[in-house]
């Protein structure tokens, strides 16, 4: 298999224009002859569904929830970047492009990232017109704030609920097309297989989560917008339903998986507090604009943070990175917090936390100003911890938050399976080895509103399609496979619950494939996971029936896939013998403990091809060519 990224020729700023001109068009009268399946209704899926339906395609949209409005994009807090340069502080498309490539530690494709920066401004126009209530200045114009990893203000926001407002905007556009009859909505469906006929993605097999029926859905193209796989760690800031199943099933049908080991550990989350804990809560990175991160100067200091005098505190980010201070990128902030805790300087009951202190900001700006900026976040913190962050410093610790890896896609966002497109967090494309704050919302909406509407037309116009209905043998085979697997889960009737296995998997991954990795640890983890997987199939207990609303059964399917997928992450992490962004192998670090890349040997995308059950996948490499930016050691000092 040869990976062809299909990057258009010509100078970077003209590539997308040129490509849009070169893409074939589907005549408006012919669009209604094409059925397109969109799986997932987060920012990418909802925006893609609405935009494709507006063009005249017949869209069939699936979501795992009762309503498309519940997708996990809704939980994004901080904001969305765009290169509008409203504050007149020196922003440009080029700078947003450059910051994103650098922030990703030079492991993303230049052409994709440049396009992302180009369309970023249209996204803001689109969302405002939909009625997204962004924050505004007194004069009525849009407000901006700065965000981690950037030295200027390019982030648009709606209090701490930006993801919610953007998603509800895209959801409203989707609902409008449902009312127009151009989108058929299938809520409470989980995609359990991809159907490929003659090398083309031609449909999906999905389980109706209410009736348990395994359904067949055929189309001319399939668009996966199913998010990331952070829940492989069990504890993450992802919603409980987030899973890898759709993308992993597509991988097993021939879609290569790109950079699975690139995961993002977000620095500002509420620390873990008990073994029963079901998920972690993110506190928006915007808090780092005013909050100061510190630990006690000496290890083992058990005084309450408010009792520790100024002189005995170490504001380690400000000390180590004077120019970016508390606003260093997420991977750098997270790793430093871990380093301090590893040295025994952590605070709180577990010692796995650092302080995020607003006392100076409250003294400087007054409580009302801080309350207006962060009120809902402070309230959320108090609800969860029972402590008042206006009076005592917050305690935070890094947590798994986002996955940069995902299905490999070319410039058209098409995977290695013809007609299978992958958008948003589910693809690997734009963030390299580390994503900057406020860039996920930008990418999801860029892909859905402004990329897929063009590129899918090019595919449809340039392809020939055999008649494939849902009675095709490929569907029948796939349904049988899915039903057998469901029956297998129910038949084990062992002694351990699905969550119990999931927790154990998460601990192994967090310890060995989390913020810091070693070759030994990765290898050890691989054998532990193989053993755990074997145990799962012998000892899991899944109550209930196949033909029913059965949440245990849903979870079992997702965890079984995580148990296989985890091994792919470990393989990828082991193969990448360098450190970059969120992938930090302890053997590869600078004298100042920063990630040391190896551009001579690892300046590539790792794309893993499934070769059969029980066999090791094959690694393909897409070399990354940097023609417009100079590869440097990232420095935020």
């Amino acid at each position, binding site marked *: 298999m040869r990976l062809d990224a299909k990057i258009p020729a010509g100078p970077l700023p003209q590539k997308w224009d040129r490509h849009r001109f070169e893409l074939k068009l589907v005549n408006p009268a012919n669009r209604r002859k094409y059925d397109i399946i969109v799986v997932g209704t987060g920012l990418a899926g909802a925006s893609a569904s609405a935009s494709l339906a507006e063009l005249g395609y017949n869209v069939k949209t699936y979501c795992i929830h009762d309503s498309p409005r519940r997708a*996990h994009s809704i939980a994004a807090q901080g904001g969305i970047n765009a290169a509008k340069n409203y504050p007149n502080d020196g922003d440009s498309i080029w700078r947003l492009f450059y910051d994103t490539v650098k922030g990703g530690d030079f492991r993303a494709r230049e052409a994709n990232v440049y396009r992302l920066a180009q369309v970023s401004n*249209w996204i803001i126009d689109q969302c405002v*017109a939909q009625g997204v*209530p962004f924050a505004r200045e007194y004069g009525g114009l849009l407000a901006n704030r700065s965000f981690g990893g950037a030295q200027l203000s390019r982030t648009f926001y709606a209090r701490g609920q930006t993801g919610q407002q953007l998603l509800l905007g895209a959801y*409203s556009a989707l609902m409008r097309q449902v009312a127009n009859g151009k989108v058929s909505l299938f809520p409470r469906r989980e995609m359990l297989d991809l159907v490929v006929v003659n090398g083309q993605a031609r449909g999906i097999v999905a389980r109706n989560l209410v009736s348990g029926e395994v359904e067949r859905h055929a189309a001319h193209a399939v668009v996966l917008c199913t998010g990331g796989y952070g829940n492989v760690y069990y504890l993450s800031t992802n919603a409980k339903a987030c899973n890898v199943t759709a993308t992993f099933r597509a991988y097993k049908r021939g879609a290569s998986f790109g950079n699975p080991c690139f995961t993002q550990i977000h620095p500002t989350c509420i620390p873990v507090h*008990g073994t*029963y804990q079901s998920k972690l809560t993110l506190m928006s990175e915007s808090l780092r604009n005013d909050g100061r991160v510190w630990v006690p100067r000496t290890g083992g200091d058990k005084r309450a943070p408010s009792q520790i005098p100024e002189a005995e505190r170490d504001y380690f980010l400000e000390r180590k990175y004077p120019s970016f201070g508390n606003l260093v990128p997420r991977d750098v902030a997270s790793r430093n917090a871990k380093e301090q805790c590893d040295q025994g300087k952590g605070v709180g009951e577990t010692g796995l936390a650092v302080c995020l202190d607003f006392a100076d900001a409250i003294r400087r700006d007054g409580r009302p100003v801080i309350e207006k900026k962060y009120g809902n976040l402070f309230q959320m913190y108090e609800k969860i911890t029972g402590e008042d962050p206006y009076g005592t410093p917050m305690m935070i610790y890094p947590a798994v938050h986002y996955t940069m890896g995902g299905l490999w896609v070319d410039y058209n966002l098409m995977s290695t399976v013809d007609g299978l497109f992958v958008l948003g967090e589910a693809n690997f494309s734009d963030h390299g080895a580390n994503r900057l704050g406020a860039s996920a919302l930008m990418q999801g909406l860029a892909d859905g509103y402004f990329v897929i509407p063009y590129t899918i037309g090019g595919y449809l116009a340039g392809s020939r399609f055999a008649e494939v209905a849902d009675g095709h043998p490929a569907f029948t085979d796939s349904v049988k496979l899915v039903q057998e697997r469901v029956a297998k889960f129910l038949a084990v009737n062992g002694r351990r619950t699905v969550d119990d296995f999931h927790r154990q998997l998460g601990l192994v991954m967090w310890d060995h494939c989390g913020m810091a990795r070693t070759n030994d640890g990765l290898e050890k983890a691989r054998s532990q996971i193989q053993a755990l997987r074997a145990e799962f199939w012998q000892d899991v*207990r899944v109550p209930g029936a196949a033909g029913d609303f059965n949440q245990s059964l849903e979870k079992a399917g997702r965890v079984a896939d995580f148990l296989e997928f985890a091994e792919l992450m470990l393989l990828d992490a082991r193969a990448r013998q360098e450190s970059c962004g969120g992938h930090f192998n302890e053997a590869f670090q600078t004298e100042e403990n920063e990630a040391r890349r190896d551009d001579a040997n690892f300046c590539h995308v790792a794309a893993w091809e499934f070769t059969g059950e029980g066999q090791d996948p094959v690694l393909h490499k897409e070399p990354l060519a940097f023609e417009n930016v100079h590869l440097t050691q990232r420095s935020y000092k």
Partner: protein
Amino acid sequence: MSKTIHLTLKIWRQSGSGDKGRFESYPARNISTDMSFLEMLDVVNEQLTLEGREPIAFEHDCREGICGTCGTLVNGRAHGQLKGTSLCQLHMRHFADGDTLVIEPFRARAFPVIKDLVVDRSALDRIIQAGGFISVDTGSTPEANTLPVPQDRAERAMDAAACIGCGACVASCPNASAMLFVSAKVSQLALLPHGRPEAARRALGMVRAMDGCGFGNCSNHRECEKTCPKEISIVNIARLNREFFKAALLSQER
């Protein structure tokens, strides 16, 4: 500091829409007060699974109060007793050792029970389909700063837009009315200049859809405002009424 408490749960069990349903009692022992309400249910479900019984079906997802998926009645109150809090954000430190909690699904004709504590809220989506949007196709929009929006209007629009669509307003209304939900969306879009061109059609369409879905009318009990986890104000209902009357009496829309 955390401690542990013991509770008795009386939980509604119903196998499907055809089943009549009944309360069943379960002990919840050694519950850490640092747990969230849903984590407490997780613990009970783990226990039920190991005992070979079917776990309690309940919906949840983000567990940080924003997706609107979770929600049950706890002792008759939607999302429990804590003001401005969704069920996932309610922590067990707000309960006392020995408490008995009655947990049942959101009840409304428009929300049929699917299983146990899970109800079908798709009627809320159907209301949005009837006009809860601004009709702009992708790409056809003017530059974002073309229309200034006074800051206080934008803030009030945001107050309304904060609705998470959980349906607690319906569940706590004696008439099972969805007026707070409808008014939040109508208000958000009516307050913004971008939403004005369709304001009349939106108000009429969404109210008609609400009636059609089997929700009741508003008779100013204000229970919705009291239980709304996002504290959406009934000022929005007043605004919806104004928009509705203006539309019905003065506009060409029918």
